């Protein structure tokens, strides 16, 4: 074991971890925004809209994420004749992919709110949009925090796939050093520990949020 190597490469690995965190945060944020719209469209009484979103969700859940990344990274430039930054390509791929999962999580959350809530809100004179905005969604979001955190952790780990399009995130940072030093064991061990630290912190934050909001 070459602990000196781990020590020396730590700054570079942490730089990679920062990229991983940024990709995860951005993709989760866009994924939740987009996913909310998709969830609403999925539950829409307009039949073609609901069918269309079902197709969207199935397409994204039924194809490998790596393939989606390659489709966007190599495909968009081929179609548009323009370069697309690999970080941006990664965030686009992950946001779209994540929106499908988030949509299903949210749909489950929204449907778990008892019908009486909606009926009461309408009876009190709130419009259907207001009901959704002020009554249903806030409650649904709190219920879906645990599965959303799971989605965030999955995103964080899956971001290692972006190494294939040369984004120097945490996994790629480790690969680059191990390709130079021929010491994969030390590098991937260090990389694993950093991933674990990030996911543990993420679940800890989630538990804090849950505890805080559950009380109210």
């Amino acid at each position, binding site marked *: 074991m070459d602990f000196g190597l781990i020590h020396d490469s730590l700054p570079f690995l942490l730089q990679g971890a920062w990229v991983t965190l940024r990709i995860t945060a951005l993709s989760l944020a866009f994924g939740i925004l987009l996913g909310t719209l998709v969830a609403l469209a999925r539950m829409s009484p307009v039949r073609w809209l609901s069918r269309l979103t079902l197709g969207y969700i199935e397409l994204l859940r039924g194809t490998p994420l790596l393939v989606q990344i390659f489709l966007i*990274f*190599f495909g968009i*430039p*081929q179609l548009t*004749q*323009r*370069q*697309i930054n*690999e970080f941006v390509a990664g965030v686009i791929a992950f946001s779209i992919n994540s929106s499908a999962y988030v949509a299903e999580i949210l749909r489950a959350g929204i449907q778990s709110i008892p019908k009486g809530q909606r009926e009461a809100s309408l009876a009190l004179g709130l419009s259907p949009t207001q009901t959704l905005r002020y009554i249903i969604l806030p409650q649904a979001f709190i219920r879906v925090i645990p599965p959303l955190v799971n989605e965030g952790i999955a995103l964080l780990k899956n971001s290692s796939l972006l*190494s*294939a*399009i*040369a984004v120097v995130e945490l996994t*790629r940072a480790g*690969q*680059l050093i*191990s*390709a*130079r030093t*021929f*010491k*994969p064991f030390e590098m991937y061990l260090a990389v694993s520990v950093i991933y674990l630290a990030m996911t543990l912190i993420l679940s800890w934050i989630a538990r804090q949020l849950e505890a805080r909001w559950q009380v109210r």
Partner: protein
Amino acid sequence: MRKWFTVMVLVGILGASSTLAQSCLASAKTNGLTVGTSPDYPPFESLDKDNKIIGFDVDLINAIAAELGFKVNIVGQSFDGLIPALLSKKIDVIAAGLTITEERKKSVDFTRPYISGPNVIITRKETSGISKLEDLAGKKVAVQIGSAQEKIASGVKGAEVKSYNLYTDAALAVNTRQADALIVHRFVGRAFLKQYPDLKIVAELNQVDTGLALRKDCGDLRQAIDAAIEKLEKSGKMDELAAKWFK
């Protein structure tokens, strides 16, 4: 009593392991030679229509093995994992168009070089203003992870190095405008040009030697392979292979 027992067990283990530890040459003769390569590097190695690994290196290693009476088992894997696989004894030889570098020599032994040639810079035909290494400053330069060319690209001040898992992906990145230039061995570059007619060679760089890599403790095997390569060079077989693949 117990102490003696431990000592005897230890002696037994040491004795057994020393008889097990055959020389690399003897092991290759009895068990065959496991050769690692990364088939994304035509014409050194690539996959044919039936996903069989073909190329100069494959023919070379087969000719060497025929010369020495070995059986050969060629395994394809990721390029950056080749040297770790060699060091952890998963493979016995690397035949992957590997450039002989001082840095790699610290970890592995190379055979005598079997081919020499320059690296080249490749861009799209529409790209202008790149005619030497320094022109890559501020450009995205595509290479393979762990390659000697990655090292060259990293040495260019201001160049943004993009390391891909496969060399074919690096070429694709330039072709699809995801990168501005590719640094690659000339022979491989020519093979890519056939595939991507919109690319062109804009500069020739340093001359490099290519060799097979072995573990440092396999000196006897390396000497045998060196002798076989020399024989192939003298008999004209090497020129024949080069003409077949590098023309």
